[in-house]
């Protein structure tokens, strides 16, 4: 395993070749590191699947200083717990990736933003940061080089939307976590208006892998153009829920479910990409390889790489109601489409669950979903209807069955 190692202590991590990648990186030119990451084909693991090397390049190119780097460990998507497991089992690899990235873009200061509910892990990470300082791996002149860098841990504000990169930055700045309007993107206008690189912690944990094996070799892990190891949180009606690692494009959805011990009960469908901002799919998708590109071809996103399995006991409208409630609760309220759209979706679905749904309600639901999708300010609002829309595509008969 490249990510899911067991290296909870620094001794173990060093024994497994930890921080070699960093020492190697410090001998590279900054642009050379970015080149390696670009060649590797590593895409972000936080949900948006943006090419990591390109993002680094954008930040590197900015003239403004200081620059910052942020590790996003807010992991608020229901059904997602891969970051938690990664932080427990292989925390140093994340920190190493963060230090290398900081060096590559020229940041002297980093923030590790971790979900409030994970405060136990946060304490542990804080201790580890201190430990690395003592070892000279963080702080001034890392490994005797001219490069100095330190990390501050920030505990999240307890809202799902704070995982969104710009809301997260507002939160670090001590303000309420309202998403900012984009552009400008964090690469140009991030923390305190300065160029900022923000990555998911899993993305960061891939950086040492890239440095160790070289970008070209990394790009051959998995499928071409869809490379590298990825963590999948598998949950719901499976026999052995948990986090599983596989190279992208290597396994199909069905195969991953098998890895998790197979379905409990009779298979009905899955939710892919997140328990809220995900897609509700039927058995036709079981053969789809888990790869950004294959997903995109079908109009889907892998999101955070969640797979939640439903069996026949599950009522889809109930699930949709839960999701709608989640979004209504988590909408920051800043923009009209999401502020009222999430509320309206919940109201209508509630009516349907009570058995009072009519044709007009479905029309209203569809119109609301479309308005939110194109006019919400941040991706929370633009993805709040994905579950409903995909369920309608894949389980239309069942869903319409209760409509008068």
């Amino acid at each position: 395993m490249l990510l899911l190692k067991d290296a909870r202590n620094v001794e173990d991590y060093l024994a497994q070749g930890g921080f070699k990648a960093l020492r190697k990186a410090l001998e590279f030119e900054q642009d050379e590191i970015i080149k390696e990451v670009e060649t590797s084909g590593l895409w972000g693991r936080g949900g948006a699947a943006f090419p990591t090397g390109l993002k680094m390049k954008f930040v590197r190119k900015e003239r403004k200083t200081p620059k910052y780097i942020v590790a996003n460990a807010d992991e608020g998507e229901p059904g997602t717990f891969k970051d938690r497991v990664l932080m427990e089992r292989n925390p140093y690899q994340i920190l190493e990736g963060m230090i290398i990235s900081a060096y590559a873009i020229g940041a002297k200061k980093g923030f590790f933003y971790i979900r409030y509910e994970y405060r136990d892990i946060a304490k542990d990470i804080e201790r580890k940061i201190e430990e690395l300082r003592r070892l000279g791996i963080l702080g001034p002149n890392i490994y005797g080089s001219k490069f100095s860098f330190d990390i501050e841990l920030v505990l999240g504000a307890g809202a799902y939307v704070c995982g969104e990169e710009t809301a997260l930055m507002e939160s670090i700045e001590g303000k309420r976590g309202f998403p900012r309007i984009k552009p400008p993107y964090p690469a140009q206008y991030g923390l305190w208006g300065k160029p900022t690189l923000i990555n998911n912690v899993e993305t960061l944990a891939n950086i040492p892998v890239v440095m160790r094996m070289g970008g070209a070799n990394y790009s051959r892990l998995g499928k071409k153009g869809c490379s590298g190891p990825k963590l999948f949180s598998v949950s719901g009606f499976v026999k052995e829920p948990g986090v599983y690692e596989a190279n992208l494009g290597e396994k199909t959805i069905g195969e991953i479910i098998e890895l998790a011990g197979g379905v409990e009960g009779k298979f009905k469908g899955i939710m892919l990409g997140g328990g809220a901002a995900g897609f509700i799919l039927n058995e036709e998708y079981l053969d789809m390889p888990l790869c950004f590109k294959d997903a995109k071809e079908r109009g889907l996103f892998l999101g955070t790489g969640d797979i939640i399995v439903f069996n026949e006991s599950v009522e889809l409208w109930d699930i949709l109601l839960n999701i709608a409630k989640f979004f209504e609760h988590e909408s920051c309220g800043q923009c009209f489409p999401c502020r009222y759209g999430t509320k309206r979706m919940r109201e209508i679905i509630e009516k349907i669950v009570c058995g009072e749904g009519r044709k007009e309600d479905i029309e209203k639901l569809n119109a609301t979903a479309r308005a939110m999708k194109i006019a919400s300010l941040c991706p929370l609002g633009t993805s709040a209807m994905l579950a409903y829309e995909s369920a309608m595509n894949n389980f239309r008969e069942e869903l319409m069955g209760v409509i008068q």
Partner: protein
Amino acid sequence: MIITIDGKRVEVEEGKTILQVARENGIEIPALCNYIDGNPIGSCGLCVVSIKNGGREYHARACATKVAEGMEIETHTQEVEDARRTILKMLAEEHGEIGGEAKELFLKYGIKIKSDKKREAPNLLNNPFISFNPNACVSCFRCVQACSLIKENHVLVRENRGSNIGIVAGINEALKDAGCAFCGACVDACPTGALMDLTAKEEETKKITSICPYCGVGCAIDYYVSGDEIIYAKGSPNGVNKGDDCIKGRYGWQFVHSEERLKKPLIKKNGKFEEVTWDEALNYVASRLKEIKEKYGADSIAGLSSAKCTNEENYLFQKFMRIVVGTNNVDHCARLCHASTVVGLFKVFGSGAMTNSLEDLEKDAELYFVIGSNTTHAHPVIGTMIKRSVKGRGAKLIVADPRDIELAEYSDIHLRHRPGTDVALINGMMNVIISHGLEDREFIENRTEGYEKLKEIVKKYTPEYVEKITGVPKEDIIKAAVLYAAHRSAIIYAMGITQHTSGTANVASLANLALLTGNVGKRGTGVNPLRGQNNVQGAGDMGALPNVLPSYAKLGTRRAREIEKIWGGKIPDKEGLTIVEMMHAASKGVIKAMYIMGENPAVSDPDQKHVIQALKNLEFLVVQDLFMSETAQLADVILPAASSLEKEGTFTNTERRVQLLHRVLEPVGDAKPDWWIIQEIAKRMGAEWNYESPKDIFEEIRKVVPQYRGITYERIEKMGLQWPCPSMEHPGTKILHEDTFPTPNGLAKFSPYEYKPPAEEPDEEYPFVLTTGRTYEHFHTGTLTRKIDGFNELIPEAFVEIHPEDAEKLGVEEGDCIEVESRRGKIRVKAKIARIKKGVVFIPFHFAESAANVLTIDALDPEAKIPELKVAAVRLKKC
């Protein structure tokens, strides 16, 4: 770059938003939350458009997306129109009382606003000027943006989440408690009519633009009038203020409709005022003045002109005193605020006015050195400008003030010097600049004289020495000096500098500092006195001063003789008396009669007991005013005057800009414009005057005052011109002294001063230093603002600011009554625990019933004769 918008290929400028480009091409995109182009809020989502570019198809907000090469934009596809309709429908179901411009949007899309949901009002509702309807508010946050981005007040904030999101003030407080400035920026920003001026009604109004009746910034204000009533007012985009205003400009007009306005001339008969006709009053005044002149000579009469009256009226008043009465005994309240500015700046630069303009100070100053000016309170629009420059473009700020004024929060350094020690502080800064070699040698060499003498004098003002005098840590003195010298720096000051026995020395020292670093005659630099009343600059320009004629021409010179020719009368050569001297002369019986136009010396002047006694001692007192002021009560005749909103004429603002007033209302009752009254008295005393309008008078001013020669009413119809403006082609002068100084040899003259302690220093008997000033809400002696209920609600009474430790020692708590006593009198006021320097207390001077000027001393600056209103020794006692 070329883009396509709704099928049309257009050439566009880079950096514009799609919304701007659409608007320029006549395409209307609904944009409810867009307020400041290029600073999107993004809340409404209505402006979303479809875009194709480089094979990508997507949707984006037109207000937030900049155009890019090759974009193909569709603004009204079925899809986006549907989305807009859905969004509006959702709004309509949530907010039943949407009004304002937003309502039109609903009409356009044929959507009925139909919700009967009621929302809870936040506590901000609780205030005297601004109304808020929570059922109309759609939480677009334009008001929040205006409050923070435009005004830097940060009072309104977003509160709650999801569909409960809304606005509150501070931590859901009343506006006043959250620090609201009542500038009304939020009202102007609100598209739904949720926030409104409390006085606004749904009525047809016509808009008339004139100049604010209060401070020297001279903001243009749009007054919305219905019948003979102002309904509401706001800063005009076509003035120096560019749409900004403050509480006084926005709500301060309410005094014109006060019940207490004087509406008929009054003569005191048997100790009681009786209403009389204008004829009777004017005849009476003329005959009494003639009588006294014949009996005691012209110099037994004195006149107080007014910085609240127009240029035309000041000009006419001093002309009246000089050639009709025949005396130079004419002065006005600038004596009390900026006489030392005129003298000090004249000495160094050869001209006594603000050197730069608001516009270049806003854009180009890299550093503001604000000393003795509580700018955000006394000159709020300039205060806001400074805050915006500091926050918005990173300008630096040094504040020197013993009080923790609002600007101190924005400053890089706050020098809390002891009142009256300014010369030492400035000399100290110059000492540091010279000892670190930071002076501008080239500038000193080419444009100044007297540098060696300056060097000599400031030598002993080492940071250590200055720390002892001022109480400012020496590190701060050094830091301030270095920062000032290292930047394009502008000095901004007000009465905290001028109202001292060392007022002239203070002003000259600031001018020295500017010369030393070459910070004169360039954009974003200079020495910039902020004038208190709206026409202080003009009243001086017009010669309402005992020692100079219009355009500051000296008495008895060739220029004086030239003016005599235009006037057709003899101007006495002997200098007249200044305000404080007049009062002394009156109490000694030397001055027998006074003609006071629009001033309230019984409250504004130092050592109040003495002033009242002097006025009572007069044989004849005429007061011309809007209200029965404390001074008017002592008069024999009261002449009801029209306010500046009821007449025409010009004001000259603090940056020398001559601005035209437009009549907003007809005068109340029988009130008349001051120029008319003066002329009528003059005629009855034998003058053959025939001015039909203020414009006639202005035409004469143009002949007499060379700086105004190129200015005509036509040229300043829309926007004022800054003097000097010597010819019709001249565009006016934004920055003084760019190439040369108006001195005989064209050089500026360093005029160094030694530090001298204030006239009265604290001692064992009177251990506290009293300093006086303004509050944001009230103005001057309160003759106008205290007629307005809302202003009284915000600040109902006087208070004394005191350091917490001093308060503790005296055993007083917030709100307790304190007796403040000086060698001249005592008053009782409420304690306000504040962050002020220890041993210093502050009392505002607007309140006649607890007049700070009972306490102040009338010790005078030897050169400018300005009294030391800013320092007096007092003792405090809990009452």
